[in-house]
């Protein structure tokens, strides 16, 4: 396994772990308030759907010409990475509220209780919320697994890294029987954002026909460069806020344009809003 393969496997593992923690919160909230059978059935059905998606699209992607594949995949990774990085910078700068798994759990539990009592049989609400929650949280990871795996022809490695992350998170959740609030999700999201953005830039550049100085060695400059840029932007935003007389004081406020990042929030109608 090369250094790039290892870095990609770690990126997939971290991305999947972060999303799995958020999905676990949904399933725990529904399971503890409305019963486990339907909640676990919904989560299991979503995992099967995601695995089927990866299995179906993987061979299609790997059959594309390498340059086309790299532009498409590099572009997608770059877009996903920048979304993660943007949120991480806004949180780091104190502009956006930090993700709090306990708050997400409480919101989910309230919504589940408000939806009414459960019967002894199949709970459609619980199944539906868990299915949608796990599917939506997992969809981006499925695309990351597909992108990374197809581009490096390492789909089994990427899928194994994602699977390992799910096993670790679920095992921790079963052991604790509580949301994994101590996982440093915001830091992990920043790291994943840096890695996805870096690999996205590298691959889309190669796919477009450019040659990076030093080939893959260029990644050793791109990754820290992206991290430093993110750090500088967050630092600058904090300073601008201080100079404008903003009362940050540790209180991180939500903006109008970005959704509150409390994970997946089930509404009374059963519809789900998931924020990354």
């Amino acid at each position: 396994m090369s250094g790039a393969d290892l870095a990609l496997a770690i990126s997939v593992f971290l991305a999947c772990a972060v999303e799995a923690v958020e999905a676990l919160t949904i399933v725990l909230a529904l399971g503890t308030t409305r019963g486990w059978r339907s909640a676990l059935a919904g989560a299991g059905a979503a995992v099967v759907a995601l695995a089927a998606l990866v299995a179906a699209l993987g061979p299609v992607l790997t059959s594309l010409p390498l340059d086309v594949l790299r532009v498409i995949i590099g572009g997608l990774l770059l877009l996903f990475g920048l979304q993660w990085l943007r949120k991480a910078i806004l949180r780091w700068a104190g502009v956006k509220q930090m993700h709090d798994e306990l708050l997400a759990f409480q919101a989910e539990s309230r919504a589940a209780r408000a939806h009414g009592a459960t019967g002894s049989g199949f709970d459609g609400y619980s199944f539906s919320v868990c299915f949608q929650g796990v599917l939506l949280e997992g969809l981006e990871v499925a695309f990351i697994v597909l992108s990374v795996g197809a581009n490096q022809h390492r789909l089994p490695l990427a899928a194994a890294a994602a699977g390992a992350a799910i096993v670790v998170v679920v095992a921790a959740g079963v052991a604790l029987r509580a949301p994994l609030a101590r996982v440093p999700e915001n830091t992990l999201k920043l790291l994943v954002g840096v890695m996805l953005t870096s690999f996205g830039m590298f691959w889309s550049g190669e796919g477009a026909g450019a040659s990076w100085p030093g080939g893959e060695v260029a990644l050793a400059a791109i990754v820290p460069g992206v991290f430093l840029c993110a750090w500088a932007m967050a630092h600058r935003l904090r300073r601008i806020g201080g100079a404008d007389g903003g009362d940050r004081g540790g209180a991180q406020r939500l903006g109008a344009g970005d959704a509150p990042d409390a994970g997946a929030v089930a509404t009374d109608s059963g519809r789900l809003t998931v924020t990354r």
Partner: protein
Amino acid sequence: MRHIARAAGAAWRFIAGDDWRLALGVVVAIGVMAALVGLSLNAWWVLPVAVPVLLWISVSRAARRRGPV
């Protein structure tokens, strides 16, 4: 028809995220890079320049929209 529109909207939000301008900028930057390579220029530097600029515009705009940070 409504289902197709909803699915298209969900796919768009999935790809573009919170700031569609950032996504559009990335697509344009990759296009510019490909065009320059087509003109026999090794334009590897386009993305390392464009990505931080686009990201800064996006985060500073998000911060400005809600007043002092």
